[in-house]
């Protein structure tokens, strides 16, 4: 039982810390700090999405960056058409976040339905390689298709808007991202506690037994995969708006690796694992990236030692092995 209380406390610290530090930065007038924390919140949101597929369902998707990238392109393409008045397959552009977010989620979800339908026919090492290959396919398509920037990506000249908020101000954008992150974590908790989540976790442990009691593993896994991609796609749309740039680099395979790293560093399947992992990864980049250009070498070493000797990630280190819920 003390384990549970420690995890509740840790979760509260992470949720409030992520809110209070930027709030302090807002008063102290440090927009850079707010932007760093916005990045943490967005990466955490993307990883919460992947955590549904990977943490709950045991599906090691090495291509989740593609949904992150597609979300970004939805924001970029919508903004470009809203800007120049042209249409995308007859659909007018939009610069309203409340329109762009659902469209980004739907686009990522549809892509995940197609990719998942192929790759979920396999499992294990095949699944890892195939999700990677499909992500790479979309990546190469994006960089060789000249209409939307190709290799150069797509700039967003004016950040998309949210009713009642000036999204050009760092704090306003941050608070939007923080709220969406908390909503997604809430959704993750609901899914984990639901019958659907129970079936999903049972499939991770033993798909044959689940099939034997009359539940088809394929449908459950595909549904979880699509939900997972939709959340990651939403994060991608936010990231494009933060950097005011829809980049093909957002769907490069290294990004898929980083999303997995965030989850493992934080703690696989843990509610606030993605937040802890994203804070460590972004913090590492900001702190060590300022000291040495070879910070990736140190990140690699830390990661390697974590995998070899400290399994379970930060949340497990502090709150113990038992999962909540």
């Amino acid at each position: 039982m003390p384990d549970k209380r420690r995890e509740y406390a840790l979760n509260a610290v992470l949720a409030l810390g992520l809110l209070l530090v930027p709030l302090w930065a807002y008063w102290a007038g440090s927009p850079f700090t707010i932007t760093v924390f916005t990045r943490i919140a967005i990466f955490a949101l993307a990883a919460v999405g992947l955590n549904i597929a990977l943490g709950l369902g045991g599906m090691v998707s090495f291509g989740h960056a593609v949904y992150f990238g597609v979300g970004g392109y939805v924001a970029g393409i919508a903004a470009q058409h809203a800007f120049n008045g042209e249409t995308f397959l007859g659909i007018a552009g939009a610069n309203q976040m409340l329109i762009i977010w659902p469209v980004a989620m739907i686009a990522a979800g549809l892509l995940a339905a197609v990719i998942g339908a192929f790759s979920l026919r396999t499992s294990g090492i095949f699944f890892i390689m195939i999700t990677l290959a499909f992500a790479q396919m979309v990546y190469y398509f994006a960089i060789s298709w000249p209409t939307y920037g190709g290799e150069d990506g797509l700039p967003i000249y004016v950040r998309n808007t949210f009713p009642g908020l000036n999204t050009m101000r760092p704090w306003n954008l941050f608070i939007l991202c923080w709220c969406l992150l908390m909503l997604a974590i809430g959704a993750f908790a609901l899914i984990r506690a639901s019958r659907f989540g129970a079936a999903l976790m049972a499939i991770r442990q033993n798909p044959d037994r689940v099939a034997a009691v009359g539940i088809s593993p394929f449908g459950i896994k595909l549904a979880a995969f699509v939900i997972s991609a939709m959340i990651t796609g939403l994060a991608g749309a936010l990231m494009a708006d933060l950097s005011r740039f829809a980049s093909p680099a957002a769907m490069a395979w290294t990004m898929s690796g980083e999303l997995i790293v965030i989850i493992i560093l934080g703690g696989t399947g843990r509610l606030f694992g993605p937040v802890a992992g994203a804070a460590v990864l972004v913090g590492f980049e900001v702190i060590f990236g300022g000291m040495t250009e070879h910070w990736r070498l140190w990140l690699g070493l830390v990661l390697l030692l974590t995998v070899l000797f400290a399994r379970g990630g930060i949340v497990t280190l502090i709150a113990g092995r038992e999962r909540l819920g």
Partner: protein
Amino acid sequence: MTAALLFEQFLNGLQFGLMLFLMSAGLTLVFGVMGLINLAHGSLFMIGAFFCAAAAGLTGNFWLGLAAGMAAAAAAGALIEVTVMRRLYTRDHLDQVLATFALILILSEGTKILFGPFPLYLDVPPLLTGTVDLGLTPYPLYRLALIVAGIGVALGLWLLIGRTRLGIRIRAGENDREMIAALGVNIRALYTVVFALGAALAGLAGALVGAVQSVQVGMGEPVLILAFVVIVIGGIGSIRGAMVGALLVGVIDTMGRFLLPQVFALFLDPSKASGAGAALASILVYLLMALILVIRPKGLFPVHA
């Protein structure tokens, strides 16, 4: 478009496919024998290319460079196996992905520190410069040599696996590792040898390709991902599958990039045709992979473990 041009592109595809085979053979061998997914295989390709370019630059001799590249990759492979991989054989694939992802970060930055941030260039050896007349078309001698070398290595590998004691042990290790350990084979040493062999093949591929492209950090990963496509098509663990998959991917990718823009030009205006053709060509091999997965989910030559 002439038959000569088509033939030349086909040879280019063959050459690309054979280099992919050198990469895929090591990957599929390591997976078949040790059950390990190694993302850092592309880094071994890069190490081979860098050491070859640096040694050839120092000594002025391409062949010394080639030997240095292979030796460096094999040594790096053996070192990685002994220090890291050995701890991963019993872990799940997620841990393997993560640890080898970390190795990519370490090896890429390490290469940058050792050789500097700028690309290196490797000259084609004097013996293999110039072109040779193949009847239909003149063809660069070096690329022809790559094809011959690729076929030679493939034959050598086939003999090694099929005809030698080491090959017997490797095949036995694929089937039942506990049993061959019980029969007195030093399984740890065998794993190190297999890993170093795969690394040497990747290093050889990197060194050979280094003379026709620039040698730079990050050159290994695109090849690695294509090698994944190859072994998914061929069947994971199957050397024969890797050969068939590599040739399919090499030829289809090269021919697609050459032919598709011209096909699109028949019904689109030229500027749009080249863009659409290039975009479709870049995803062609992945579509092939998806198609093969639908028909044969375990690849063309499934290995029954």
